[in-house]
């Protein structure tokens, strides 16, 4: 199968997660992605490990985010290197960077300068908080962006205080948005034959993630979200039974559903708490507690059998061990194996997109720092 972005050359001047995750998406869709990295150190993510897991010289984290790419080492402060890069840029379709505002201007690789080198370039920029305003020089770090965006008041229960999402959600969403913007720009360029500028920021991306609830807030007289005060509630804006309940041997989650029907099935009396439709929201906390009393009495499987038979939207709450053993996990082929140059393998996830029925597999592991410098010099005659 020919992949949709075959023939597209991407230069990635990015570190950490937001920019590189967009590069990974483009690579899996068929683009050739070359990381431009500082000699000796490279993408700082190479040394950023979780649980101290390394594969050869680089962290497993780096390997996860940067598979299916090449690496070209160049010092942006060295005139010779810069000259070579400009030649490479003249052959590229896309370049992306996530430097802080002003850095590329100093180096001479800002958008107008690059347009002069390559009038058909698609130039992507990732910032923390956009290029304007009082936050423009703040570090674009995921937890900090979550914290200023209001997101921390949506999860957990009210007594917990602010609860951030336990993943780098603003980085990841921003990477997704960047990938979208770059591909839209490719489509635009196919018509206009002219350069396109694409800008995203972590803050705008994490606000977009909240677009439904922010719209509610904006049109509801500025009423702040009120999380439930009890454990297990799963959404500040949704009524009972929406949430997760402890059972005798685990947890079960219930999505939106008809409270009376559910309580009939599980044999739980809510007649004093639920007399009209609005009570599902008004008495949310008490209802969640009441249902919780019943769910505690039997195993998860017992409840699932009862509820699923009646078409109620429910599921067991699983950990990675249980989840990766699911029949459907195997059928959808969530995992793929990367081949390392030393003959070893690592397992990771596959692109979530399927094209014409095929998964976008790629066994190519992340590049060692500068491993492709010489061959790229030769191929593009960079001298």
């Amino acid at each position: 199968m020919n992949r949709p972005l075959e023939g597209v050359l991407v230069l990635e001047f990015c570190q950490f997660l937001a920019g590189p995750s967009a590069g990974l998406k483009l690579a899996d869709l068929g683009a050739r992605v070359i990381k431009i990295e500082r000699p000796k150190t490279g993408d700082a993510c190479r040394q950023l490990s979780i649980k101290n897991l390394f594969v050869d010289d680089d962290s497993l984290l780096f390997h996860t985010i940067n598979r299916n790419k090449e690496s070209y080492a160049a010092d942006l402060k060295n005139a010779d290197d810069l000259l070579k890069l400009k030649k490479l840029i003249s052959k590229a379709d896309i370049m992306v960077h996530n430097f802080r505002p002003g850095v590329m201007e100093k180096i001479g690789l800002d958008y107008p300068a690059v347009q002069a080198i390559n009038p058909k370039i698609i130039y992507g920029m990732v910032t923390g908080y956009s290029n304007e305003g009082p936050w423009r020089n703040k570090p674009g770090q995921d937890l900090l962006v979550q914290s200023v965006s209001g997101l921390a008041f949506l999860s957990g229960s009210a007594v917990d205080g602010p609860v951030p999402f336990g993943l780098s959600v603003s980085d990841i969403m921003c990477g997704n948005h960047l990938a979208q913007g770059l591909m839209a720009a490719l489509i635009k360029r196919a018509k206009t034959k002219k350069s396109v500028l694409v800008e995203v920021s972590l803050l705008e991306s994490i606000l977009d993630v909240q677009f439904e609830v922010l719209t509610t807030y904006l049109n509801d007289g500025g009423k702040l979200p009120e999380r439930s005060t009890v454990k297990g509630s799963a959404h500040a804006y949704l009524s009972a039974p929406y949430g997760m309940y402890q059972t005798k041997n685990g947890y079960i989650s219930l999505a939106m559903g008809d409270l009376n029907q559910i309580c009939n099935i599980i044999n739980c009396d809510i007649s004093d708490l639920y007399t009209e439709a609005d009570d599902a929201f008004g008495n949310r906390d008490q209802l969640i507690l009441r249902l919780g009393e019943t769910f505690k009495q039997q195993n998860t499987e017992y409840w699932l059998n009862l509820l699923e038979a009646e078409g109620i939207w429910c599921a067991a709450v699983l950990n990675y061990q249980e989840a990766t053993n699911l029949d459907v996990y195997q059928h959808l082929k969530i995992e793929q194996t990367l081949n390392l140059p030393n003959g070893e393998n690592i397992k990771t996830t596959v692109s979530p997109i399927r094209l014409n029925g095929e998964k976008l597999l790629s066994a190519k592991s992340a590049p060692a720092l500068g491993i492709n410098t010489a061959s790229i010099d030769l191929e593009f005659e960079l001298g």
Partner: protein
Amino acid sequence: MRPLEDYLVIDFSQFLSGPSASLRLADMGARVIKIERLGVGDICRTLYTSNLIMNGESSVFHAINRNKESFEVDLKNEYDCEMVRELLKKADVMIHNFRPGVMQRLGFDYQSVSAINPTIIYGEISGFGNEESEWKNKPGQDLLLQSVTGLTALTGNADSGPVAMGLSIVDMLTGAHLAQGLLASLYRRAINNQGAFVQVSMLESAYDFQFETITTFMNDGGELPKRSAKNNANAYLGAPYGIYQTKNGHLALAMGSIPVLGNLLGCVAISVYQDVAEAFDKRDEIKTILADHLLTETTEKWLSILEPADIWCADVLNWKQLLAHDGFKVLDMIQEVEMLDGYKYETTRCPIRIDGELLISSKGSPKLGQDNEKIIKEFNLKTIANA
């Protein structure tokens, strides 16, 4: 010029995943026509959050479906199906998120649609894929997807039990991935006139979201994530990573050296944790000491010490505080849109800027079937369907 100007998207999808993808395409310039069920429409119209009804419909529907048109049809009626087929012949993109098998029964599966429009880009969303598996027919609902993919073990503290991310995050990711597949395919079509069948599932999108942590799990002998006992913000990161209460609010601290922090904050008790490995291994101890210490002063005071020293920290804001802040105002993130009947509401805009332009649009969400007459006339559907 917007990138997708002149593109026509026919969107059969409901709720959030599919419609969030078509919203993105609409903001990029495409014309999006929602195909909605006769008399009922997108069920999201009546999916109220905090019981808020705006001009007869849910706030969520208004947020997701602005900048679109509505074509109300009965897909069990052959005459209506014929009209939809005519639209599909002219379409560049089609989207649906029906359960497996539904589109085959209705005659709008990829095979049937590509037979009448070979270069169409056909997008399909499922909950758990279309492969034969025991979960094929399970409802693709966000909280259920969070629950079965291990995601609820990452947020909150060690003793919190499972904690959901308090938004339909899997829906949004799936929509984002679908939009990517569609855009990549549209690009290929612009180059070589090739159609495409793009499929995403919520399950695969939920794992893509967790690609860092699940890859760690796969290569770490199957060790499960362990959240910290207090102030957890990432199960895989050491102290101080987290949000802390202060005398008058909260303070977020990202990665940083413990001894350096100890010195700056005047917290001698954590300065003894000199070894880098201790930041992870002893994070519960360190966080407990730090949490007590940070209570003694205001957020502003701590920021005034930490920011000049380039420590990665931030205030923790709610929406009221955020919306009042210049850092937010400068983004111009809010736009006002207007429905055909004159009803106006505020919502956020597309997060992507192209050629320095904000991708705003004043067009509000459509009332059910509001564009039937116009579309029938414009595409000459009546005569075609009668023929």
